């Protein structure tokens, strides 16, 4: 008996001997094939950087994520310290990076770098996780984190609050641009995980009523510098 792989490929090749009709496209436009070029029929991501920031702010508000815009890195650190005090955090885990370290340094509570191999239980017990990100998608309010930019896979999802520190120049108009940037930056050496985070974790599984913080963070803050 031949192996499953050979069999499945043989079945596929046999099945595809008869061609399927092309789909009935309604828009009747010249080339519906997706291309890396902008897709002017998807939700708008803004033509200029300023437009993009406006759309981003609107999207994040709808998603119940909190955007904190600050003019410089010193005010970012100040805003983060205030957040820690208001929320009475006792333990904060962070990804070691030039953007995060000055923020972590202002904390009066315990702060630890979660980049070396760590105790899962300790991370679970942390009140907040502070990370950087790869890019931010204005069109959808999504923040792209990766196992490289965000201290692995768990840091951005296991602690009860997730705080992202980023610069305004990291905002891209749409999802296509974010994916193109990922390819340009990492090529064939992709981080093992890339995740578009769109608002705090949520569920509607009980009577379709929205509840935030199903398994991931209940709160999501984006501190945007510039």
């Amino acid at each position, binding site marked *: 008996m031949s192996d499953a792989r050979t069999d499945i490929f043989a079945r596929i090749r046999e099945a595809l001997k008869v061609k399927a009709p092309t789909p009935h496209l309604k828009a009747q436009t010249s080339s519906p094939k997706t291309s890396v070029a902008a897709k002017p029929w998807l939700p708008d991501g803004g033509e200029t950087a300023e437009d993009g920031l406006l759309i981003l702010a609107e999207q994040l508000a709808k998603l119940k994520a909190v955007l904190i815009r600050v003019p410089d890195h010193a005010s970012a650190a100040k805003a983060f310290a205030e957040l820690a005090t208001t929320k009475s955090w006792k333990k904060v885990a962070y990804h070691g990076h030039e953007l995060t370290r000055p923020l972590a340094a202002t904390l009066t509570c315990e702060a630890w770098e979660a980049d070396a191999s760590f105790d899962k239980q300790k991370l679970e017990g942390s009140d907040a996780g502070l990370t950087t990100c790869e890019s931010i998608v204005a069109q959808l309010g999504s923040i792209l984190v990766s196992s490289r930019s965000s201290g692995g896979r768990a840091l951005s999802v296991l602690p009860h609050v997730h705080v992202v520190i980023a610069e305004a120049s990291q905002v891209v108009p749409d999802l296509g641009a974010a994916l193109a940037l990922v390819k340009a930056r990492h090529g064939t050496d992709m981080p093992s995980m890339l995740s578009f985070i769109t608002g705090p*974790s949520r569920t509607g599984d009980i009577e379709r009523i929205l509840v935030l913080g199903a398994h991931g963070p209940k709160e999501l803050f984006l501190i945007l510098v510039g």
Partner: protein
Amino acid sequence: MDNSKAIFLKEATVNAADGVQRAFISKALGGYYTNRDLQKARYRDWERARDAASMAKWSAVNDLANVLEKFVNNFERNGGVVHWARDAAEARDIILKIAENAKAKAIVKSKCMTSEEIHLNDALEKAGFGVVESDLGEFIQQLRGEAPYHFVFPCMHVKREAISELFTKHLGTAPTDSPEELTMIARRHLRQLYVDADIGITGANFLVAETGQISITENEGNARLTAALPRIHIALSGIEKVVNELDDLSVLLPMLATAGAGQPMTCYNTLYSGPRKKGECDGPEEFHIVLLDNARTRLLADPEQRDALHCIRCGACLNVCPIFKNIGGLAYGTTYQGPIGSVITPHLRGLKQWNHLSGASSLCGACTDACPVRIDLHHHLLHNRRNAAKESPTFFDRVFHNGFNFVIKRPWLFAIGGRIFRATLPLLPKAPAQSFRDQWKHDHV
């Protein structure tokens, strides 16, 4: 299996008469309609977006051998292990063997309809492995010992009081009528399980051939945790989930969220390209993917209905289907409910036993209009009816269809029939002296 039709008819009759339950389902879907329309309005041209989504899937499915091969090569290059399963039994065996080799003590799962299709939990439990569903809806259904009601909203039919009772019984928690508190109970209970589990099992929404990544769409963060904390990550996916390029996701991810849940994007859309890499601080040591055929190639071999393999499992067709809303998801008795389930189940499990689902439709076409990848759903239900009549015609089909066919091809016989008909109807109101055909001839010749 033979009585699937009898069970369907019985369940459908009972559920359709349950006005209270139907009102509950309508209310639950009300918010979805509002949010879906608000999000659709943000698309500058929803129809063009549907064209692009449809073409992205069409081009991958119609070149499946090459695209799948490219995906597999890139997936292996990224350090993952590929397994092939011709059918459900092979897929179960592969996963059981991985669990046995790992001497797994605890397995945590995120939502994966393909695992429902192969009855994975039963097999794991029979072999002595503890397995816990981590998606809130699936967790509730697992405790209830019931199949999912809807493949996107698994427990949308269960009232909060019932969930509270369920948690009190199984988890020993105090009763509550707050959805938020109920969610927090599940959150606290499941958190420790991610930390303790040896194996995490997930599905996959898209397999990206260009990069060898798998894409997982979710809202709760349970799939993120399932693929982050256990030592081994197993993804189970149908072979048709493949797409050509990473850029295809720039269309498919937002559309899946908008059509499926009325969101701009779901909370977490995650791409995995292998086990933990050198220099990364966490993530699994092993990453396996099980690629399942299970009669998908049979559907592929039907060019007329091949587009049913474009399905991205958003559930939009269920949410708008008057049949689904009236009979509920459990009556179908299938892994995939609603219009898409009625189309594909006869292909996956046999047309003879499942053709009755082709009649579970008003042919209103709401499903086809709702489908983000333009599957011609309601016509496929008609195709299935035709195919079933060809495959094994009933006595009525044979006599009526052959008789009609015989008469209609012979105008003289048809005319005699008409005359006899008129002659034998003196009891009815007075018939015209001439038939319509005769009048037409008289007036036009």
